[in-house]
């Protein structure tokens, strides 16, 4: 069992590294011994949140894992609502900050802390010292002092806790008053106890009649112990008093009076009272422990069952249904889970699952106010609604379901009988359940993303295989055909003409295949340009050289201005752009009108233009012309593939360049294509 894994009531224990924020390894002090483990004792006291944050900072500095533990003492059962909520909040914060969270029942805080520290092999303990009154310390002792004395191997860090606000005091007093009322015991208890006393008295009278037995007082121990153990201290003491009176009245001479002659009999009365006090205290303590253990076991059972349920879940939808049903059943209320829709819908809470204890058919309704609370809780990653600090007018209490610092959804609870949605002592359970649900959600989303990734990888692999196979299988026969046709010698003019035509078509087919492959590369996003400085003069000259056969006698002018800088692009992609633009100009331009390739600075950048004299671009087609298989005028006699300009745009975009089409601005008809290089794509010539 790994250290720290044996806390009997782990709440959403996470194995996430505590020091996720430490990125620089040198930030860890070199003196930190390996195997440091930090333990922070969480109490219901105000200031616990600061204590947890401080503990986390220390854990980060030590690069040590850390646990937050709350020791449930018998006193825990008497926490007020505010204290319960504060405790739940503190434990939740610790879980969010990456601590292992545990809650451990124990006789005293000291015992529990010492045991947990030993089990978890903790080396450092952080505890808060509250500014309690001297009187409290005299009665309960200072935990700090005793811990230091009892666990010598442990480094104990003591941090002062903030002074408790007055309000908490008054609440505490009110809680104590209610508690006090409960301690007076039930009426049944008194009836049973007094009945038993009467029975014992009758029995004693019978025994006295049959033989002279002196110490009948022992008989009265029976009702006193029953009353004290079953019905508490007050009932026990009352029974003790009644028993003493009955004993005195019926059995102590002078009988049938309340006077006592023999001082021995006074002792009997005192013993009866003492037994009442001691046994009621013992019983009360045992009962408190039993209750605590029971609650702890129930909570653990619920958590474990829930965790088991969650591990089998594969989809978010299933998780939503199970989460609502389970938490609704455990906390006996209406449950609803709201999650944002699929990505791209501005994180609106559109997905909803709900559960209601009354009927499955009628899901609980959310009013506008409730939805506002839900949205607030989601956006702020904090509870909202009834019983929280925000939007308390709502019938619902919403808690965020958060993992990794981001809210994945919100969970809402309400009760049909208009009571508080969650009892304060059940709040830790709810938060633990939600923590588990968040982890499960995170896991499901991760799984989905992994599946998507492997699918994408498979798709890429297929596309790549297809591309290389097409590239190889189409090009090889074309290479052979073109090469063979070129090698053939004709015998007469007619044959020469036919062969030239065949060769031209084969070359066109080859260009088409090459274009299709380029297009496939663009669409697969597989273009990884290798950027280097390129001399535009050189690039233009090389493109014209490559297209010399196609250009034939078509006149070409180049006008790269003398101050044009180098451009930072992939030389091959730029070459393809230029050859495609020149090819386009040669095909659609007037064969007599010169094609102009020019480059000049404009507005901090550089513009490279390829313009022709010809019909130009129809109005409104300036964008459409770059689409795949667009051929203006629908002419396919020109031998184009309809891909050239799409490839130009695709390659240009891959290099981060803009391409646009327009008609010539000098008044003559014709098209003008512009590739624009921004300032960060330019590199000046060295002087």
């Amino acid at each position, binding site marked *: 069992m790994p250290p720290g894994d044996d806390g009997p009531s782990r709440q959403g224990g996470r194995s996430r590294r505590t020091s996720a924020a430490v990125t620089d390894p040198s930030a860890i002090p070199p003196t930190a011994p390996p195997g440091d483990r930090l333990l922070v004792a969480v109490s219901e006291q105000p200031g616990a949140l600061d204590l947890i944050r401080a503990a986390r900072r220390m854990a980060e500095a030590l690069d040590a894992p850390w646990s937050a533990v709350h020791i449930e003492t018998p006193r825990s059962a008497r926490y007020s609502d505010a204290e319960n909520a504060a405790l739940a909040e503190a434990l939740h914060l610790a879980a969010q900050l990456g601590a292992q969270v545990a809650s451990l029942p124990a006789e005293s805080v000291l015992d529990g802390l010492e045991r947990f520290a030993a089990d978890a092999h903790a080396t450092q303990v952080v505890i808060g010292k509250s500014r309690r009154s001297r009187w409290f310390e005299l009665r309960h002792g200072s935990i700090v002092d005793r811990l230091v004395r009892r666990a010598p191997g442990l480094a104990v860090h003591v941090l002062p806790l903030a002074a408790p606000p007055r309000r908490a005091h008054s609440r505490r007093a009110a809680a104590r008053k209610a508690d006090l009322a409960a301690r007076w015991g039930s009426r049944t208890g008194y009836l049973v106890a007094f009945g038993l006393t009467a029975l014992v008295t009758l029995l004693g009278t019978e025994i006295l009649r049959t033989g002279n037995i002196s110490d009948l007082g022992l008989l009265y121990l029976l009702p006193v112990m029953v009353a004290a153990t079953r019905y508490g201290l007050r009932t026990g003491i009352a029974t003790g008093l009644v028993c003493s009176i009955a004993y005195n009245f019926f059995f102590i001479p002078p009988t049938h009076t309340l006077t006592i002659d023999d001082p021995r009999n006074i002792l009997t009365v005192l013993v009866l009272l003492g037994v009442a006090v001691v046994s009621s205290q013992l019983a009360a303590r045992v009962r408190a422990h039993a209750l605590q253990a029971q609650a702890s076991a129930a909570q653990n059972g619920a958590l474990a069952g829930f965790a088991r349920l969650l591990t089998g879940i594969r989809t978010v939808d299933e998780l939503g249904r199970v989460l609502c049903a389970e938490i609704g059943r455990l906390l006996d209320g209406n449950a609803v889970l709201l999650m944002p829709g699929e990505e791209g819908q501005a994180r609106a809470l559109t997905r909803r699952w709900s559960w209601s204890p009354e009927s499955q058919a009628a899901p609980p309704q959310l009013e506008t106010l409730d939805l506002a609370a839900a949205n607030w809780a989601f956006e702020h990653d904090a509870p909202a609604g009834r019983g929280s600090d925000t939007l308390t007018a709502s019938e619902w209490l919403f808690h965020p379901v958060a993992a990794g610092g981001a809210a994945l959804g919100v969970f809402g609870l309400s009760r049909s009988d208009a009571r508080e949605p969650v009892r304060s002592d059940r709040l830790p359970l709810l938060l633990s359940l939600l923590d588990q649900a968040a982890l499960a959600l995170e896991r499901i989303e991760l799984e989905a993303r992994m599946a998507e990734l492997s699918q994408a990888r498979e798709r890429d692999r297929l596309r790549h295989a297809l591309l290389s196979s097409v590239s190889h299988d189409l090009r090889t026969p074309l*290479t052979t055909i073109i090469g063979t046709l070129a090698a053939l010698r004709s015998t007469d003019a007619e044959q020469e003409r036919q062969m030239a035509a065949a060769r031209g078509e084969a070359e066109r087919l080859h260009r088409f295949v090459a274009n299709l492959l380029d297009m496939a590369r663009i669409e697969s996003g597989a273009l990884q340009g290798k950027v280097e*400085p390129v001399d535009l003069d050189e690039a233009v000259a090389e493109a014209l050289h490559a297209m010399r056969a196609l250009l034939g006698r078509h006149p070409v002018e180049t006008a790269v201005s003398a101050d044009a800088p180098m451009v930072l692009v992939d030389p091959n992609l730029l070459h393809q752009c230029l050859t495609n633009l020149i090819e386009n100009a040669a095909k659609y331009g007037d064969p007599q009108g010169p094609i102009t390739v020019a480059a000049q600075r404009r507005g901090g950048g550089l513009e490279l233009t390829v313009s022709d004299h010809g019909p130009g671009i129809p109005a409104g087609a300036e964008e459409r012309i770059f689409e795949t298989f667009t051929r203006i005028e629908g002419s396919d006699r020109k031998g184009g593939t309809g891909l050239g300009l799409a490839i130009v745009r695709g390659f240009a975009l891959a290099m981060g360049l803009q391409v646009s089409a327009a008609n010539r601005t000098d008044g003559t008809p014709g098209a003008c294509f512009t590739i624009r290089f921004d300032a960060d794509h330019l590199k000046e010539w060295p002087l």
Partner: protein
Amino acid sequence: MKPNVTILVVDDEPAIRRLLRAGLARAGYAVVEAANAREALNAMAIDKPEVVLLDLGLPDRDGLELIPAIKLQAAIIVISARDATDQKVAALDLGADDYVSKPFDSDEVLARIRTALRHRLPAPTQDGPVRRGDVEIDLLARTVRKGGAEVHLTPKEYGFLSELACHPGRVITHAQLLRAVWGPGHESDVEYLRVAARGVRRKLEDDPARPTMLRNEPGVGYRLVGLE
């Protein structure tokens, strides 16, 4: 006719091998064929070819792996796809002499073979000046003349030009040029080459905007063409 020159054609496509064999045989070369790397290495040992036409996509091994093994015995001309620039550069840097892109022109292949063979011949070209039209590069005297008049080149321009002139007609990769002229450690400073190329063109080309002598192979390197 050169019946004494043997050329090994390595390609896994029978049609391409047939096509090349026809063209090469017509030009007077003896032709040996290999369909994979194993056969190619066998042929290297048995037939001792002077030139290898190597397709890099072989079924049993990457064609690039063959280059170091055979470059000392024969000139290597790589046949590769048009868009495989990285592969071309890798092949050249490994020691291949040149490359042609598919679909190739038989005349172009023959021209590349002639260039490659010239470099395999024992008589190096460094002995006398190399000429192209009215440009004369004297590698011994370290002078360059155009139209009879001496042209002043910067040391880097001259280094760049002479490195190309030592291997006329052959493409020299950016990395090779940079290493030879600027020294190791400058292999990726392509802008130095651009500056030198621009200077050389301005001083030696008739029309620097339409260079006919100093040719650029986008993303690969430079080549001096038409030298005698």
